[in-house]
């Protein structure tokens, strides 16, 4: 038995270390695992957080709306460093990376801010679904980067749209050019999924629908522009592998109470 002790010991160490490592390399996931130290900040009362801790919470999410690191993540390829810039990144629902994830409904209640005085206008909210991502070897473009995007825009130079994108090629699926949001106005958008169709509602008004197979599978993602968006309600209902229904959100309540 002692002959195998080194191997057993090594395997035990590996299991222990990899399970506790914040940066464990998961062969399956393309999303960056959450950092345990930063995760602990979310459990602290807002007032007890120092400036850096608040920044670390605030920087993960859309501008204007932090998203909980346990629920939402960025892809490895979009990892950024702290340069006092809150970068624009797409955030993926971690649970939706599971192949058996089936989304039923996405509800987002939000308000877009006005454009800044410098005229830069990027007031866009993208809700993506049926997304797929397969990375290539380091530094190369991904093998797969595609999905559907439902876009709501208050920007002057970007139209609302529903399109399918693969890498940099996109095809428009529903004409939504005339749909222009008003800043500072509250909107509730609901995407309702059946297995082979999705319908879009905005403030209880039917915007349109689209039919195709397996629209309720794949990764769910949110992307916002440089101008902040305040999300007051974020709810994603889905079915898991065993058929049980689950709800996901990821909004960080303490930031809605006090702000950054």
């Amino acid at each position, binding site marked *: 038995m002692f002959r195998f002790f*080194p191997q057993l010991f090594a395997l035990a160490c590996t299991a222990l*270390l990899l399970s506790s490592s914040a940066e464990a390399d998961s062969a399956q996931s393309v999303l960056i695992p959450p950092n345990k130290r930063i995760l602990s900040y979310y459990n602290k009362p807002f007032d007890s957080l120092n400036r850096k801790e608040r920044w670390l919470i605030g920087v993960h999410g859309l501008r204007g709306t932090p998203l909980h690191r346990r629920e939402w993540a960025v892809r490895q390829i979009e990892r950024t460093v702290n*340069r006092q*810039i809150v*970068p624009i990144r797409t955030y993926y629902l971690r649970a939706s990376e599971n192949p058996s994830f089936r989304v039923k409904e996405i509800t987002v209640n939000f308000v877009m801010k006005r454009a800044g005085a410098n005229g830069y206008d990027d007031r866009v909210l993208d809700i993506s679904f049926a997304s797929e991502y397969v990375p290539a070897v380091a*530094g190369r473009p991904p093998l*797969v980067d*595609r999905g559907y995007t439902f876009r709501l825009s208050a920007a002057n130079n970007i139209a609302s749209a529903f399109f*399918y994108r693969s890498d940099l090629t996109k095809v428009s699926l529903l004409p939504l050019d005339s749909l222009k949001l008003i800043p500072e106005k509250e909107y509730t958008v609901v995407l309702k999924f059946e297995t082979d169709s999705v319908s879009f509602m905005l403030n209880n008004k039917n915007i349109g629908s689209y039919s195709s197979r397996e629209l309720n599978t794949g990764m769910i993602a949110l992307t916002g522009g*440089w101008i902040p968006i305040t999300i007051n309600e974020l709810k994603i209902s889905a079915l898991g592998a065993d058929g049980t229904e689950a709800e996901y959100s990821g909004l960080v309540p303490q930031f809605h109470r006090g702000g950054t």
Partner: protein
Amino acid sequence: MEPKLNTRDLCPSFTGAALDMIKLIIAIAALALTAALAPLPLAPEVNQLQARIYLAAFLAAAACCAALGSRATGRLFTDHTATKLGCLLAALSMAISYYCLKTPLPLAVAGASICLIVFALAAFVRHEAKIAFSAAVGLLLVAACAMSVEATLRRVPEMTLAKEVRQTPPLVQPDQVNIVYKKNWFRGKRPCVDCPKDNIRIITLGGSSTYGVPMYYGSLSYTQSLQRFLDERRPGEHYEVLNAGVAAYGITQVIAALKEELLKYNPTIVTVCSWFNDSAPNNRWYQTPGISDWEAYERHRALQRLGEFPLYKKVRASKLFALSRWSLLGLKSALFAGSGGRKSSAPAIPRMNPDEFRWGLEEVVRLGEEHNFLPVFVLEAMHRPDSLKNAKRFNEYFKQIYAVAEKNDLPVVDTISPLHQVADLWTFHDFIHPNSVGHRIIAEAMYHDLIAEPATKRTRKFLEARGVDFGKPDVRLEIEKHLLSDALAKDGLDLNVRAPYLDNSPGRLEVTINNSKSYSFDGLSAEFKKFSIPPADFNTIRPLTDIRASAVIDRSNNPQWAIGSTGLYSPVLIDATSGGKNFGWRVLVTVDGQRIDSDGRGYNVSVIDAVQGDVLKQKHFDTFGAEANATALLKYIEQLETTYPARKLIVVVAVKTDGRHNVNKAALGNAFKSLGGSGELPQAMESFLLIGTPGAAPGTAVEEMGRKLVHKIIGSTAQEYARLLEEK
């Protein structure tokens, strides 16, 4: 009659002495109060009370010496003796002070010398009118006093002085222009040492967009992307693209970096991507609002040159200077306390206005002519850019770029148009910094305007003179398309391709649809041939279908491509080098000329598909740094077959620095045996190379180790580009 004794006649000597005494007491009291209340240049942990008592005692002693010098020397300084005495005093003072400066004397003795010189100085001041050459004598005495004070300050224990007095900061901080090179060097790739003779060195210069802010991985910047494109698409030619971008750089810093640091690397091409930082108001680089970058740079250089002047350096290094500086700064902050510092009333002007910017561009052109490199201007785009036409119309800096480029027949890389075409997609991290997708688009634009279709005659001629062959086929490692599914379902897909560098080995065209369904077509050769996929095979559920076509070369039974005696043959050229710490200290693993290793210390493991030649994964394990990494390496090798089920793999293991420390020798030896290795491990700091496959019999893999640089090639370098495809 006897004169009446007048007490007033008696009084003058008493009154005078009493008055002198009172003046002295008042002076001493004032000095004591000064010592008690004045801020002292001492470190916080020093006993302030004790220091003040010493200072008060010293000042009292100095005051007494001054009084004595002034009052008690009257009889000595007559009209005839004053000059001689004055000169003597000056000479003695200089001698004493010089001696104190040069000799390590106790603090008290040095302090006493000050008192002596104060005595002499007071005597001089009292009798100055009688002394000839009084100016010279006075200067000498003042100098002697200063030297004594310097000598005394030097005797004060270093750690009792405040930090600001211990060492004076330099007149100007070093210009950050080239600090990145001294500290970090170029971002990512380093300049080659044993460069090929026809190496074309491209240095990319610019601000944070060029550097790749805020991305963690420099490999995603446009510099590295361009390097990949050139490596892949220009077989037989050698390019080296170096990222010299630094956040906040403007055209001034670009010129300064070139002059002070980069020209020594003899670049062939220098790309300049700048305007946004130049247009920013207020000089953030030199912290000098109200003047342009270039003017600030010139001033900075002038101050730097002054700071290097030997005499100035000596004065600035003295403790007396430090003390004076500390006092003046303290006075300044006391006077201006509460005012929030001196606010600049200078107007907010851009770092370089368009005319100054133009001058900067022309300076780059001039440097290019002087040092024989080709300047290339790259338009710096903002997020979701407008069309190029509008950009040129409204952006004054773009106008200058085009004007200078046109005048000198230089290329301007148009990044605006391709980014404008995808303006509604996410290609930026914020309003100015591209993300990895944006960088890729910029790199494609640079490749196009420099190599694929050179933007100007001068560019073409310049590159042709350096061995660039514009008649080469336009090849890719992979042909990639994203096409409408409806159209494919109706018409199918025809691919007219060839592998222009393929020898007579049998080649196949592998076409993958949506990363799932694959088609394999025989007959790929160096001649164009049509490969068709029928419409019925494009029944996909998504609006777009992703097509990837790549070449697979069958090298079986060709001994040059054999992986030892494992029975496996590599479809790709594998070139691997391992260097232990004293034997080269490096690692390099390339597949068909493309580097794939992580260049990490310890074990660099690359996994290659043995059929198609795709690099599936590359990872390095710093076993020297931590035992946990050694354990992770073991697990990684053990799990290879389950990670890539039903695939034949080629595994390349190459050590950099050391492969012995921290590893479980028996377990790792067994793991390598499972790849076809002998089970032996390198000794400490030795080189080690293993090219094998999971499941191979022990001893059949390609393996070498030892106290030397180890280098192995699987395949023929003549076929390094065999897999490159050209589409008609």
